[in-house]
């Protein structure tokens, strides 16, 4: 009895001390979230409803949601958000790469140390000479790039903590400060990026002008061929998996849409419209070949229709991204002789409509590589049991095999967690960048959904519409997270 009273008293004491926090969360988190749901279904407009205006609030059902789905701006800004999110796989890869570098046992022999020192000396001397002749910006970029390349090639020699801190710097420097820094880096005339890029582009322009245009156009066809090869490989892989009963029929067919998407875009895009028919014919040929194979050889094992959907989707998405990159290069090579005739100019980055989004994406990559993701990977790498590597060594595994068959599967839960969080962060992000660097411009090119919510809520006063956009964003985040959970989690556990 006495202990029960004491327990109750302890509970009450705990609740008493927790009360400020609980009340804070209820007041400033739970209530606003619930209230914003209601808000999204009303016509709340600051111009009509606030402490000075008492027009009655009306329930408008799904009107705000219908409006946002039919409004061009929402779709456009969603497109901007998704575009910026295309950097997520690269940023995750970068974080993993950084973690691998920073956990690498690289205390090599004397020859490596000597090579590293000699290279460093040459690098520093070259950069000092560049600075002396008034090309300090170029020198700095070359120095930084050289150091990064040196670390990547030979690993880190001592000072691991320093390097780890340096890599993590972007995460603990205030966002606005880094955005202003990047704004200066991106400066088209005086920024160090263009200072380093312009000489390279000058050499490229001279080289392109020196060779006959058909030689450059051949690279266009090479890129289109690469696209085709990727699509063919992907279809072949899907059929092989389907035949072996690793994936179901649905999982083999539905994700193919993503493999076809770059070809469709290539047909619609003015730059490659005239060439993409080759892709279409090639794809039709490969598709027909696969159909013949399926019809004549059938499958060896069966499985449920949706089995392996996540794996096949991931592969198809990865192939799609690579195809898009190849398509972009095809367009570049197609236009290169014409562009190089008058010399190639370095981009105007955030001032230019076409470059503004990639500029923000590159900056995002820089920030994401040295972020919490890198720390998570570092922690996960240290948790991999050394016995697994010893077993792999005994089996004669190469370094590549050690990575694919030991490290990568062991990191799967971490990768899954990072992917989920990065997807959520990507959909919600972009506000600070847009507000600080571009004000959403030029021509709305860098306006993301989070910035759109701010504009609608506080620059135009349409709070209910802003709430509807916020909830649409939540639904997207929730849907993608569920999808990740359903397919990715299964993949991790497998």
């Amino acid at each position, binding site marked *: 009895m006495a202990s029960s009273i004491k327990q109750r008293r302890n509970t009450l004491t705990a609740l008493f001390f927790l009360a400020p926090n609980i009340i804070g969360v209820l007041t400033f988190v739970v209530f606003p979230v619930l209230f914003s749901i209601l808000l999204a279904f009303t016509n709340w407009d600051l111009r009509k409803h606030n402490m000075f205006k008492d027009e009655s609030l009306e329930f408008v059902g799904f009107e705000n949601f219908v409006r946002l789905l039919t409004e061009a701006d929402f779709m456009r800004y969603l497109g901007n958000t998704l575009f910026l999110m295309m950097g997520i796989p690269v940023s995750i890869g970068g974080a993993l790469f950084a973690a691998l570098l920073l956990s690498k046992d690289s205390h090599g022999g004397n020859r490596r140390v000597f090579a590293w020192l000699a290279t460093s000396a040459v690098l520093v001397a070259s950069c000092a000479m560049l600075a002396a002749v008034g090309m300090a910006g170029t020198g700095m970029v070359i120095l930084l790039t050289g150091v990064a390349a040196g670390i990547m090639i030979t690993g880190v020699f001592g000072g691991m903590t320093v390097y780890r801190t340096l890599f993590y710097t972007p995460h603990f420097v205030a966002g606005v400060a880094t955005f202003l820094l990047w704004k200066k880096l991106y400066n088209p005339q005086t920024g160090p990026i263009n200072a380093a890029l312009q000489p390279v582009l000058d050499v490229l322009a001279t080289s392109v002008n020196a060779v006959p245009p058909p030689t450059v156009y051949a690279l266009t066809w090479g890129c289109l061929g690469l696209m085709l090869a990727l699509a063919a490989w992907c279809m072949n892989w899907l059929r092989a998996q389907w035949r072996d009963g690793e994936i179901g029929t649905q999982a083999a067919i539905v994700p193919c849409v993503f493999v076809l998407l770059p070809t469709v875009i290539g047909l619609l895009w003015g730059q490659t419209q005239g060439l993409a028919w080759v892709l279409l014919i090639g794809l039709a040929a490969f598709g027909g070949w696969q159909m013949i194979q399926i019809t004549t050889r059938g499958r060896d094992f069966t499985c449920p229709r949706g089995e392996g959907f996540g794996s096949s989707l991931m592969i198809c998405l990865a192939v799609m991204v690579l195809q898009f990159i190849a398509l972009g290069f095809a367009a570049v090579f197609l236009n290169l002789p014409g562009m190089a005739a008058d010399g190639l100019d370095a981009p105007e980055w955030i001032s230019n409509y076409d470059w503004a989004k990639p500029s923000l994406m590159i900056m995002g990559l820089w920030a994401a590589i040295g972020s919490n993701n890198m720390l998570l990977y570092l922690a996960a790498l240290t948790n991999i049991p050394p016995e697994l590597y010893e077993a792999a060594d005994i089996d004669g595994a190469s370094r590549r095999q050690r990575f694919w068959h030991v490290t990568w599967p062991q990191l799967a839960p971490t990768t899954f967690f990072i992917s989920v969080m990065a997807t959520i962060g990507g959909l919600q992000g972009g506000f600070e960048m847009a507000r600080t660097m571009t004000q959403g411009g030029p*021509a709305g090119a860098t306006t993301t959904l989070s910035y759109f919510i701010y504009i609608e809520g506080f620059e135009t006063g349409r709070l209910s519409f802003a709430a509807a956009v916020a909830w649409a964003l939540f639904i997207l985040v929730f849907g993608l997270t569920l999808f990740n959970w359903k397919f990715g989690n299964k993949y991790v556990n497998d």
Partner: protein
Amino acid sequence: MKYFFLIVFLLLILASVGLRLSAPDVQSEVPVTYWVTDPNPARIEQINRFHRWLIKNGHVKEVTVTTPTEARQLRARVPETLADDVIAMQPEASAVLGPDPDTSKLPMTIRLPICEMRTDAANRDTGKQVIQGVSGVAGDVMDVWTGAGQVQYFEAIGLIENLTEHATAMGFDLSQTFPALETELSANGEQYAFPCNVATQMLWVNRATFARFGLPAPPQQWTFSEFESFGKRFVDAANPEGQRRLFFFCNHVDTNDMIRSLGLSFYNETMTRCDLDDPRYAEVLELKYKWTYVDRLLPTKADQNSFDTASGYGGVSAQLFNRGNYAMLKSGRWMLIQLRKFGELDLALAEQPHGGFRNMRIGSRAAVVYKGGAHRDKARLFLAYLASADYNHLIVDDADALPPNPAYVDSEAYLKPPKYPNEWDVHNVFSRTAQTIAIGGSFSPYVLDSIARRHITQAEDAFMNDKLTAEEAGEQATARVNAEIERTLKENPALRDQYEQDVARQKKIDALRAQGKPVPLDWIDNPFHRVYYQAQGWAE
């Protein structure tokens, strides 16, 4: 552990109480009012003069001090800066409020201003003002830039007080300022603001820059083609062949002024429709594009960014003008605050180039009174102060744009400041243009200016980035702004009747214009069209 938590909890409560007790409102002898404005150092003197103006005009709180203890307590409750103002108006008060108190002069009655004004430079952002305003905690007086349609937005939300009656009673009604500002300071025919200063933006000319390249100074008035040919001569002379362009003819030209000079406005006469799907708008966009990317008379955004980096953080236009990178600088009279730092520049002014109809946009940094403020009566006094001779003279002396009241621009002190003879050619031009060719902004009651401006800017940006043709940009801007008008009407059905009436009136105007007949002036709401119709002889 729980005792530790308890102690922390109690300490937090004590800290909260301490914080509250140290709040200016609690500590000060008189109520503290806040003016949300920019961090311009000139605001300090403007506030000091306000305190003195309050005392001079009898807006005081009289405190009788009889004992040394009371004197000490009062001294603790009157901030030093306020005490200086009190002593300036009542020198004997230094016996109580001064650095060397003299209790032998007690008892004494001290006349304190009825409020202490402080600046709040951290909340100038519109978003912050709106959020704080609808939460009941905005500043008592807020600065707004009239050209951005903030007065209309704040009025629509209900944040600001209708000043019409108070302004008439207290002497800061619209008759006390430039007539062209009427649409900028009012909404729905009621006054909501009074200017802190008035701005017409002209092109500053540094004659020395032109002389440096062997060119004469440009004329004060010029057409588009004259501007272009003059500009080409300048940039060709100033920029060596084959090198990065560092010298530009002008930093900026305004689209709105340019289309107005062709007889076009963002909106039609009754402001029921956006009118930018017009060849004249396309013509102006194409000119701007040509001047920026082909002739290189104006800097691109990338050029501007480069200048920012090369010259340090912010506010570089004046330095670039002084160095000759900008032969001309589009700005108001307030730019003199910066230009005076460079010594005796050989200054002149030019109007923005026109397509036939000379005009200039007038704007203002105006003060509004927050409707939810606890000290609205004191805030209104501040607006009365803005209309006073004390304040206007201060603006004249500081060159902080034009003073709110045009009566003060005819004085010798304004026209020929003795310390700055190099400026004697410019002051008169500013005041004359503000009173002759200046026109206020066109704000449709059916769409917020911030929304319309966003769509128009996006279309212009798309054109400047080669994503749309000039015609398409005009069509896109028009379609989007008109769609917003439709949306506003749907969201506010109460506006529908007025809109229908305005549309019907617009049809009558169009019919009369088609027949070549004059139109009754009071049919026209758009301030630009009112002036334009009169200038063309189309108004009845």
